[in-house]
């Protein structure tokens, strides 16, 4: 008996609405994030992550109000990522009720921002999001690189070394997304998940590619992830959080049921 592995549903939010579709309703406007968050909370989600894809800064105010509304009703940890570039951005999200913030591109362009944020707010609320792609060819030793701009721009940074550096700078958790797998439903890239999880002492959240419940099991058992994040398998009603937890429990993984 001990610490449970976590299941984290992820919601993409644009201008205060969940996008990407929930239960096959209109794809552009898939629901009120407060209602969606409450439903996942009732199903037993261990945390909820919001990815703010809002384009303009005026609209970001909407995200702050959304976080406030959710944090008043959902009493599990909330992470907000997307567009976090300054300590002021972090402060606003934490004051609104977020427990953690995800820093992605800003960390790549200015690693010192992670150090500053961790010193100011504590490592426990700084999640560094890493988007990685495999760059080694068949037959070569495995190598993954950090990409930005939705996986379009290579940075030349080795993903495992980058993860270690971010932890050294104060990241309290790593959210690892395989850009090769994201949206494929073929399962996590277990190689990079395991390589990073074994290289750092902080928890690693596996993301990108979940298509069925066995993929979640693989992420923990083979990928050594501390938490697994998924969006579409939950949004489209294919599986509930309870079903996912049951499958993981049946596989011998300790879960909060």
């Amino acid at each position: 008996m001990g610490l449970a592995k976590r299941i984290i549903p992820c919601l993409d939010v644009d201008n205060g609405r969940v996008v990407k579709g929930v239960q096959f309703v209109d794809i552009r406007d898939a629901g009120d994030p407060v209602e969606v968050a409450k439903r996942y909370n009732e199903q037993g989600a261990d945390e909820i992550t919001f990815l703010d894809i809002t384009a303009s800064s005026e609209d970001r105010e909407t995200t702050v109000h959304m976080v406030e509304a959710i944090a008043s009703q959902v009493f599990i940890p909330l992470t907000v990522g997307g567009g976090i570039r300054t300590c002021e951005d972090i402060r606003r999200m934490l004051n609104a009720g977020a427990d953690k913030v995800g820093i992605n591109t800003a960390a790549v362009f200015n690693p010192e921002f992670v150090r500053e944020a961790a010193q100011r707010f504590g490592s426990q609320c700084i999640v560094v999001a890493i988007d990685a792609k495999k760059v080694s060819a068949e037959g070569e030793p495995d190598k993954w690189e950090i990409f930005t701009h939705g996986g379009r721009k290579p940075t030349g940074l080795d993903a495992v070394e980058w993860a270690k550096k971010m932890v050294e700078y104060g990241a309290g958790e790593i959210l690892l997304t395989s850009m090769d797998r994201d949206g494929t439903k073929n399962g996590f890239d277990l190689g990079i998940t395991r390589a990073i999880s074994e290289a750092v002492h902080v928890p690693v959240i596996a993301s990108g590619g979940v298509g069925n419940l066995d993929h979640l099991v693989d992420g923990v058992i083979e990928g050594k992830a501390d938490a697994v994040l998924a969006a579409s398998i939950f949004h489209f009603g294919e599986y509930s959080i309870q079903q996912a937890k049951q499958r993981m429990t049946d596989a011998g993984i300790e879960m909060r049921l």
Partner: protein
Amino acid sequence: MNDMKKSTVAVIDYGMGNLHSVAKALEHVADEHTSVIVTSDPAVIDAADRVLLPGVGAIRDCIGEMYNAGLVPSIRKAMAEKPFLAICVGIQSLMSHSEENGGVDCLNHFKGNALFFGENHKDHDGGKLKVPHMGWNQVKHTINHPLWADIPDSARFYFVHSFYVVPENKNEVAGTCDYGLEFCVALARDNVFAVQFHPEKSHKDGLQLYKNFLQWDGKP
């Protein structure tokens, strides 16, 4: 006119931010006669019926800000006389000393220290454990206490911490958790109760603990 006196719970704000979740969780379980006040005013704390000491961030800043804001006398006074709950870094701040930030003297309400899990923390079989201890772990009740009312023994609560408390007086331990070692996650003495986990992030069992606190008369 309803002149029933309002009961107040003061959530101490010593400038370390994010008290939103704590206040909202208390409001969620508070009845109509209870008001939740987030405050850095010693007079408000002195006048409150019960007091909650949250904790965020590193211990040196926490203790430093409590002193800078002139809150320590009110905190000690509250611990001497009314229902008092400390959470997360709050429990560490009540110990004698913490080894965080190179060593920091704390409020010494409970004799003992806050120690670091270490970056090479291992489970019972020698496997690597991540630090911080982050996520949902089971809390074993080691005593009966009004704050455990209607919370199942070994229910899971949400933790985020790298330091854990080791009290000298084992009779003050109210709950334990296992993460490579069995360690204290709840302390109780008289009208003071302190927990390492975050009740405001621990779903229904966490809300139940806050509800129990709002109904507690301060007797063990």
